[in-house]
């Protein structure tokens, strides 16, 4: 541990910080009491014992991306985002936005701490 971390200043600051946290009124989120119904199945992932797609498809062809055979370019929603470092706003105006949106399964907060 560095000397800085051991300095009296830091010790004092940590003690004050902990004391202020310890003095807070109980504020545990009510999540525990909420009925847990959402299983977030999009995250589940699967082993199964079914066979796949038959006799012709990806399994019998390989694509050599190091040679000239790789002609595919990313062509999904990545076109929505600029990668130009001079762009302050990374997301381009959604002119041709038709991207499917799925429902949010997760609580999402922009930042912590919120206070």
């Amino acid at each position, binding site marked *: 541990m560095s000397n800085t971390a051991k300095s009296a200043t*830091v010790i004092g600051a940590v003690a004050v910080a902990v*004391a202020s946290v310890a003095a807070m009124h109980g504020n545990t989120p009510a999540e525990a009491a909420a009925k847990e119904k*959402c299983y977030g199945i999009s995250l589940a*992932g699967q082993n199964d014992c079914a066979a796949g797609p038959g006799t012709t498809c990806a399994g019998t062809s390989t694509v050599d991306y190091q040679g000239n055979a790789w002609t595919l370019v990313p062509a999904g929603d990545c076109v929505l985002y600029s990668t130009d470092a001079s762009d302050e706003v990374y*997301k381009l105006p959604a002119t041709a936005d038709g*991207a499917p949106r799925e429902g949010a399964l997760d609580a999402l907060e922009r930042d*912590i*701490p919120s206070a």
Partner: protein
Amino acid sequence: MPKTPPPEAEAGQAAFAAALLDADAPIPADVAKIRGQAPEKRFAVYRNNVVVSLISALASAYPTVKRLVGAQFFDAMAGVYVREHPPISPMMIFYGAAFPGWVESFPPAETVPYLGGVARLERARREAYHAADIEPFTMEQFQAVASGVAPERMPELRFTAHPSLRLVRSAHPVFSIWADQNGHDVPVRQGGEDVMIIRPRSEVTMRQTPPGGFTFLSAMSAGQTLAAAAASAEAETQGFDLASHLTAALESGVFSGVKAPEG
């Protein structure tokens, strides 16, 4: 040019396994011929099952990555990955751990520099989803412990990270891009983002952490003392506010316990 002789077919599961992942490899010698011929299409059923099921496992683990590059590109990219990194474990729920790092060095994807970072987020979410179920350490529990610790010993407190806690740092706005792609209305601005992923109880939650938060939480989850973690965060972010970060961490269920200083 001299003609390369076709490779000799071998028998047994080693030959079978090799031929599954390499479509140019001969069909194993012990596979029964039909009308004198090696049954190419019949063997192709197994080749397809293996490769397609693994690509599909990656697609279900990395849905946002797939949306970002499109299905055709994703499937081709995943097809390369599954041959280079076939699973070691039979648990498909954890397949693809090396995918984010691999994507970052996959030349055809370099026009999407944030792709690997988004993959890291998705991986972290998957791991948090399947992590052990442990009640998070609450603010009340912390207050009870803290009341028994002398102020000068406070800096020596160490916390145990909740098993679902994952921290992702990216040079790209991966949190905003993920959120934008998954139905949340957030602006996507230039610049790196730090993300905390946690499943204190039933739901995986994800938050962008403010400056210093990533370093503070990384140090805490590595078992460092509160003072050392605060010092690391302060070194990175001047004016790091320990009280507000500690409060937020406790309220988010980031820890599963605290170790009071000994002696």
